[in-house]
Every structure is written in C-alpha cells, then in structure tokens.
C-alpha cells in the first residue's frame, strides 16, 4: 500500500467518522446556544435513533425510510420532553437541567432495553452502499464514503437553515438575546422547542447512520456522549462552525492517533481538549465560557 493511498483512505475515513461526531455535536451545541443546557441524554437519544431505525428497516425493508423517519420520531420525543418538562425549568439554575437530562438518559436507556431487548440488533447497510470502491488501488467501503458525503450535505443544510431561513434568524437572535426576541413578539418557547427537537433528531440521524457500523447496541449511548461533549467544548459552546471543526479535529486525531500510537488510544481526545482549553478556555470559536 503506498503512503499516498494510505493517507487518502484514512483521511476519507476520518471524514466519515467526523460526520457521525458532527451530527451529535451540532445538536448539542445548538441546544446549548439557545437554552444554556448541557443535554446529558444526547447519547441515549442517539442510541434510540439506532433502535427506531432498526424497527423501521424491519417493517418497511428500506434503510432510506429509517433514515428519514427515525430522526423525526426521536425529534418528536425530544420536542415532547421540552414541552412537558424542560419548559418549566428555564428560570432554574444549571443543576436542574443537569439532573433532569441525567434522569431522561436513564429513562430512555432503560426503555430501549425494555422495548428491544438486551441483544445487539443488525441494521445492514442498503445494498446500493454495501460494496467497496478503490481509492488509489485500496479498497474502501462505499458506505463510509456515503457517511462522509452525508456529513457535508447535512452541515451545508444546517448552515443554510441558520443563515437563510426565518427560523435560523430566530435561533441566532434567541441565542444572542432571548429577552429582546421575546419583546419583539416572537414565541421564544416555540423556538426552544424546535431547536431541542431538531437537536435530538440530529442525534438520532447519527444513530441510524452509525448502526450499520456498530449494530444497534446498548453500549452506543455511553461510548459517544463524552465524545460529543468534547467536540462541542473544543469548538466553543454554542458555535455551529466550532462543532464542525471540533468533529473534524477529533476524528482525524483519533484515526491517525490509533494508527501510529495505538497504546494511547484512550487518551488522545482528552489531551487535545486539555491543550485547546488551556490555550483558549472558551474553545476555538467560543466566547470566554
């Protein structure tokens, strides 16, 4: 394998991993920007996405249906949670959100186990994407290429949503100054519900897309939640572009770190975070936290 082929393969692969991390991180950071909430249930919702995806594939036989509707289902769960519980807590301190989302994480995790059972479940990649292509003579799974592309598409879509739509304008305005937006006669509560729902839906999208790689499994939640926090904090809490950069940074560091220094696989991410925060305490693109 030539060095160039190796670098190309692993770089595209890092992009595919960055896409999965980005789906988690961007939801988390949008929610934080609007609500100042750290959503501890984000990993559990990601897992829920994978399991809902599994059921949709079983019923309809189509991965694409699952990809389209699992995020909607999970987004609605998030939306309902915001409406019924989070909404009552906006005047309270960070402790309240911490505990209530911790509670939600427990409830969702256990509900998944009760509904789908304790075993890992297979979500195969669609036929169309299950082959390999050759990048400079080296085989590379089409599915990972698809992940990288979908990451780019979704990032672009969210950017357009934030920049070009009324909802995007309201989201940006609310994260700057919620009271003023309220004074202008906008239903801030509705903006918050939407953002929370969208954030949860994005996590679920990540879950469905990850399922062909890691199966729909019960360790999914625990293995991603910390990664997602790290990405968001590296990029700067509340920053869309920051979450994108954070995801890319962590994905590349993990892929190449694992290759060259496998003994330090457990520590890379934290060393990067330490370095970034010591130099820029608010994250790369964040204001002073």
């Amino acid at each position: 394998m030539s060095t160039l082929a190796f670098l190309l393969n692993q770089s595209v692969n890092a992009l595919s991993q960055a896409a999965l991390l980005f789906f988690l991180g961007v939801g988390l950071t949008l929610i934080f920007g609007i609500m100042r909430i750290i959503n501890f249930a984000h990993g559990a919702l990601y897992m829920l996405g994978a399991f809902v995806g599994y059921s949709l594939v079983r019923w309809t036989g189509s991965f694409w249906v699952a990809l389209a509707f699992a995020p909607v289902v999970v987004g609605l769960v998030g939306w309902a949670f915001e409406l019924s519980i989070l909404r009552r807590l906006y005047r309270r301190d960070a402790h309240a959100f911490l505990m209530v989302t911790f509670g939600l994480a427990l409830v969702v995790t256990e509900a998944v186990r009760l509904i789908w059972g304790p075993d890992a479940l297979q979500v195969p990649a669609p036929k169309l994407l299950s082959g390999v292509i050759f990048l400079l003579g080296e085989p590379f799974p089409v599915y990972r290429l698809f992940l990288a592309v979908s990451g780019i598409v979704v990032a672009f879509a969210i950017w357009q949503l934030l920049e070009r739509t009324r909802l995007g304008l309201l989201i940006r305005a609310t994260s700057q100054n919620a009271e003023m937006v309220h004074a202008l006669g906008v239903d801030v509560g509705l903006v918050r519900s939407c953002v929370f729902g969208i954030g949860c839906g994005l996590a679920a999208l990540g879950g469905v897309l990850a399922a062909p790689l890691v199966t729909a499994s019960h360790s999914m939640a625990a293995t991603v939640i910390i990664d997602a926090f790290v990405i968001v904090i590296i990029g700067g809490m509340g920053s869309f572009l920051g979450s994108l950069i954070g995801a890319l940074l962590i994905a590349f560091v993990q892929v190449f770190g694992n290759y060259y220094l496998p003994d330090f696989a457990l520590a890379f991410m934290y060393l990067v975070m330490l370095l970034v925060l010591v130099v820029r305490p608010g994250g790369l693109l964040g204001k002073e936290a």
Partner: protein
Amino acid sequence: MRWSTVVGLAVLALLIAAPLGLPAFAMTLLTELVILGLFAMSLDLMVGYTRLISFGHVAAYGLGAYASGFMLLNSSMPLPFVVILAALMTGIVAIGVGWVCTLATGVSFSMLTLAFAQLLYAIAFKWTSVTGGSDGLAGIPRRAGPMGITLLTTKTGFYYFALACLVGSFLLCRKLVASPFGAVLRGIRENEAKTLALGYNTRLYKIAVVAIAYAFGGLAGALYAPFAGFANTELLFWLLSGQVLIMVIVGGSGTLIGPILGAAFFLLLEHQLSSYTEAWALFFGLVFIGFILFAPEGIWGLATGWFKRGDAAAKAKGSLHG
C-alpha cells in the same frame, strides 16, 4: 437549641448505636453509605459553595482508592496512616489539577476536570504493574495496627473508623465554610468579578478549594478500597462522576449535610429498586425528574422546610402563651 441541632445529635447517637441493633448486611450497607456520603460531601465544597461544577470528581475517589489499596497490599503501614496518607496524596495531586482546570471557567472548567479523570482512567488501565490494569487490585486487607490494635480489622471497628472520618470531615468542612475563607468562596459563587475587584486572588482560592475537596474525596476512596477489598478502573469511570454530582444536587447543594443524605438516598434507592425489577433504571430516572419538578431544593430543602415550619409553629405557640 434549634430543632435541626437536636435532630442532628439524635441521628449521630443513632449512628453510633447502630452496630448494637442492626443485622450484618444493614451494617455493610450503612458503612458504604457513610463512605459515599463523605465522597458526595467533598464535592459539595466545589459545587455548592464555589459553583465549580466538576464532571471529574471520580478522580479523587479513584486516586484515594488506588493509593490506599496499593499501600495496604505492598507495605506494612497500619490502616489509619494509609488512609490519611492516601487522602493527602490525592490533595497534593489536586493542586496541579486545580491549577490547570481553573484556567477556565464554567462548562470548560467542568470538561477539564473530566479530562483529568479520563486521563487517570487511561493510566489506571495501562500502568499494570501498580494498578493491576483492567483487573484492578483485589484482596485489599484491613490491616491491624497501629501498635497491634485489631479493632479496625473487624466490621464494626471499620464502621466506626469510617463514621469518625465522616463526622470529622463534616466538622472541618463546616468550620471551613463558616470561616473568612468560606466567605470568599461564597463571594466567588455569587460574583467572581466583584470578589476579584475586592482584591482577592480568586484563582488561588479556587485552587485551594479544589485541593481540599479532592483530599476529602480521596479520603472516601481510601476508605472504600479496604471496605470493599478491591480497587479497579470502575472507580475512575466517568459515570460515577455524574452520579456523585446527582447525589449532591438531589440532597441539596451548598448544605454539606444534604449531599450526605443524597448519597444515602441514591444508593438505597438503586439497591432496593434493582432487587425488585430489572427495569430499575427507568424508575430511578423518573424519581430524579420528579425531584427536580417537585422538590427543587433537594432532600435537605424538604427536611429544613419541615423544620422551619416546626420552629415557626413553636415560636407562634410560644408567643401565644407568652
């Protein structure tokens, strides 16, 4: 005397008398509650009094547990020395941790504490010759001494030792938060910029409180290792950091006593629920959501609310008769 003091002393008396009346497993559980209570209380110094929310307090627990486990397995020092030494070592390491973490504030501070805890987790995993790697340290003894005293090797003796550590730490912490030092901490909690403007080097105070909180957390871990007989990477896993934070909040932060109750509540509820149903995590989660909605001040808030009403009622009665 106020109601709360009376109740406090009564509870202490009950705890001291407990081994006389309680069966074996209740004592096992009570000892673990005392240790976990100490752990939660140590975090309250940071969370409740200084608003330094740590996502990595497990580092203190794990460091203390590994240090005491290693010393008990590889030296002939008596148990109380080992435990105190492990706590001091944890506190000293924490000065470095605090120095780095306090470069940031808010969520960044929290994530830096998490980073340190995770790095320790990785070290515990990899440094097999000292930590036993993924297997951890097992068969940690409760050694006799000093001077051949065998009291601590017994179950009851160890319980009293752990209880003494908790009560002693509680009294020290209470003194600390009532001192001028504590006043500065509260100043940082309410408005750090203002405290800084008043001429206090707030960063030094924050480093100090991190070191002290870690030392007490390390004390709890140092007690856990000889209590359970093992120390492994699970004691450094991030989930426990989240759980101890929940214990503090559910008990009532900024009260010292609340987090102890929170720890007891957390452990008893988990233990009992998981014996009734496999789906215990579901109910466990619902309880926390319920607490936030209906008891925002935590367990201690509920209890003191009740006492205050009692005091007020007594006063009203007094004034009526007076």
